[in-house]
């Protein structure tokens, strides 16, 4: 039985803009409303209440929930609120333009230095003389470029998702899935649970979730900038994606073949369960080990 805990830290990046809440002054809440907050009914609300739930010790594995919910907050605000989406889009565009102007200014400065360098045919002396200034400018431009990309990506994602996709539930559901599987002793019963994982892999299904977004899994991935390992992590995530696990399980139920998991993948899975890339990857890894280290075709 796997046990997961921990979680990664925040990587660098700008604080995104949030639309100020425009709700009118609220009437004083009744005491019981304050004492008993409503249960979360989707991934957005679950994300904001997960920390409170995690404060109470529960048996079985737990996953630490990252504190950073700012993009979730943006998505939540834009659901069914085109005005909020437009306001956020405008703010993101303005921020992008400001970063682009900063980038352009630095590009001009570095261009002058590079002209000097090319005039000297990049001689060792010229390189040494300009290295400090170029490096400093370049580092700033690199950070600005990243910030520009984030603003652009957020803008696109807000329009693509329109608040219809929230974080996958499987991190929060891991304990109950593990507990259920632990109760089972037969391969077919494990398959029974494994084949139904779509319920927790994907966002809570609402009537208002467009069909093409129902299979989009939103995850939080930490520390790829610090570890510069996004490429390798992407490959692992593909291998251990629970949706692929379900598909492969369904296929194996038909052909009765044994599953094949390389030791290399298993080693990576066990490493990821310690949480170097945060709870989403932890949950992917934990689900993979839970269902892929035994063979459901064995009775």
């Amino acid at each position, binding site marked *: 039985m796997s046990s997961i805990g921990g979680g990664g830290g925040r990587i660098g990046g700008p604080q995104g803009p949030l639309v100020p809440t425009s709700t009118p002054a609220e009437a004083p809440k009744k005491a019981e409303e304050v004492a008993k907050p409503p249960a979360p009914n989707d991934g957005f609300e679950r994300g904001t209440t997960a920390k409170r739930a995690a404060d109470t010790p529960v048996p079985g594995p737990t996953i630490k929930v990252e504190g950073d919910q700012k993009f979730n907050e943006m998505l939540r605000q834009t659901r069914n609120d085109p005005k909020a989406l437009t306001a956020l889009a405008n703010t993101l565009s303005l921020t992008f333009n400001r970063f682009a102007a900063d980038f352009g200014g630095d590009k001009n400065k570095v261009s002058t230095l590079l002209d000097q360098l090319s005039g000297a045919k990049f001689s060792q002396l010229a390189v040494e003389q300009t290295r400090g200034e170029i490096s400093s400018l370049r580092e700033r431009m690199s950070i600005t*470029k990243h910030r520009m990309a984030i603003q652009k990506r957020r803008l696109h994602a807000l329009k693509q998702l329109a608040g219809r996709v929230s974080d996958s539930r499987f991190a929060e559901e891991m304990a109950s899935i593990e507990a259920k599987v632990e109760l089972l002793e037969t391969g077919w019963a494990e398959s029974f649970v494994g084949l139904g994982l779509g319920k927790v892999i994907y966002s809570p299904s609402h009537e208002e979730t467009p069909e093409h977004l129902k299979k989009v899994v939103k995850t939080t991935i930490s520390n790829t900038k610090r570890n510069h390992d996004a490429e390798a992590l992407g490959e692992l995530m593909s291998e251990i994606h629970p949706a692929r696990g379900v598909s492969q399980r369904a296929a194996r139920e038909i052909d009765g073949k044994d599953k094949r998991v390389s030791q290399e993948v298993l080693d990576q899975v066990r490493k990821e369960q310690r949480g170097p890339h945060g709870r989403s990857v932890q949950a992917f890894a934990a689900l993979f080990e839970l269902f892929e280290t035994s063979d459901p075709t064995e009775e």
Partner: protein
Amino acid sequence: MNAINNELKLAEDEIAYLRYTCNIFFLPESPLYVFEAEKREPKSFGAAHDALTKKGLVDPDTWRGKEEALATLAVVAECDARVLWQRHMGEEKVVRDFYVQSGAVVEYKRDGHTYHFGAETSEQDMVAEVVRGFTPAQHASTLLDLVFSPGEYLVFAVFARDVRAVAEPKSGEDRMTLEEVLACFDDESDVPSIPNDSDFQRHTQTLVDRDLLKKDAGNNFTLATELHAFARGMSSETYDAFTRYDFIDEEWLIRETTIYPTSDSIYLLSSLSDGSVSVQELDSQKLSEVIAQAIATLPDISDNPMKPRFAKDFFVRA
């Protein structure tokens, strides 16, 4: 799955040179980000300049990169999304890796110290290339499109395995009694919420009601004939997995799709958000639709979230 077309090959020092001259910047999700993280510089600026000049990527006089010529490299360095296509054939696995930026696509591969970049193309072309790698079903009127609960799927799989066990089926040879079906499942009726024999009897009856199982006068069940090709052709060891990552900041949007080619058709096996299992047979049109929705840019929906979106909508920005 062919090799990269019209590829550009770059050595580490050449990429490091382009980093130093601020021609290329690297985002953390790029496979080239290590150049930025380690602040790599070429061992010899002169040698890198000469090599890049010969490749037409650098102006010999200004020593600066030519922006247009570096567009393919920029797509990988400043990617907003990635598409992994993995073809599994038993022990063998072939991987193709595509990076996407604003609808432009570049295939990428690293081979030791050499970095390979394909010609820049569109997402529409990427989808078309993927689709060309398959031979879809030709009989569009009889395509399978089934949704099972997990319990129904397990019963269905018992009969599918039974069909597979018979090399050349003759009438009546691949039939099972209900007792034989139930014998495939251990009784765990003392464990709450776990299906027991009566559940599987119900699932069996549901499949009969849906005409997926045929019941004869002797209470024997057989898999419907139209499902035999699927049952015989499926192999869990031969499949193509597609994963698309859309990077935001710490958030990644991930789509995973796995399809199974057989000798005369293609099947998509997937899990649905209500916990059921879907089996879809794909003709060329459906294959294109599935692949586009799996690997192309998600369409903007803010104008009308409830409007259904199809493959063509995934190429709007391309």
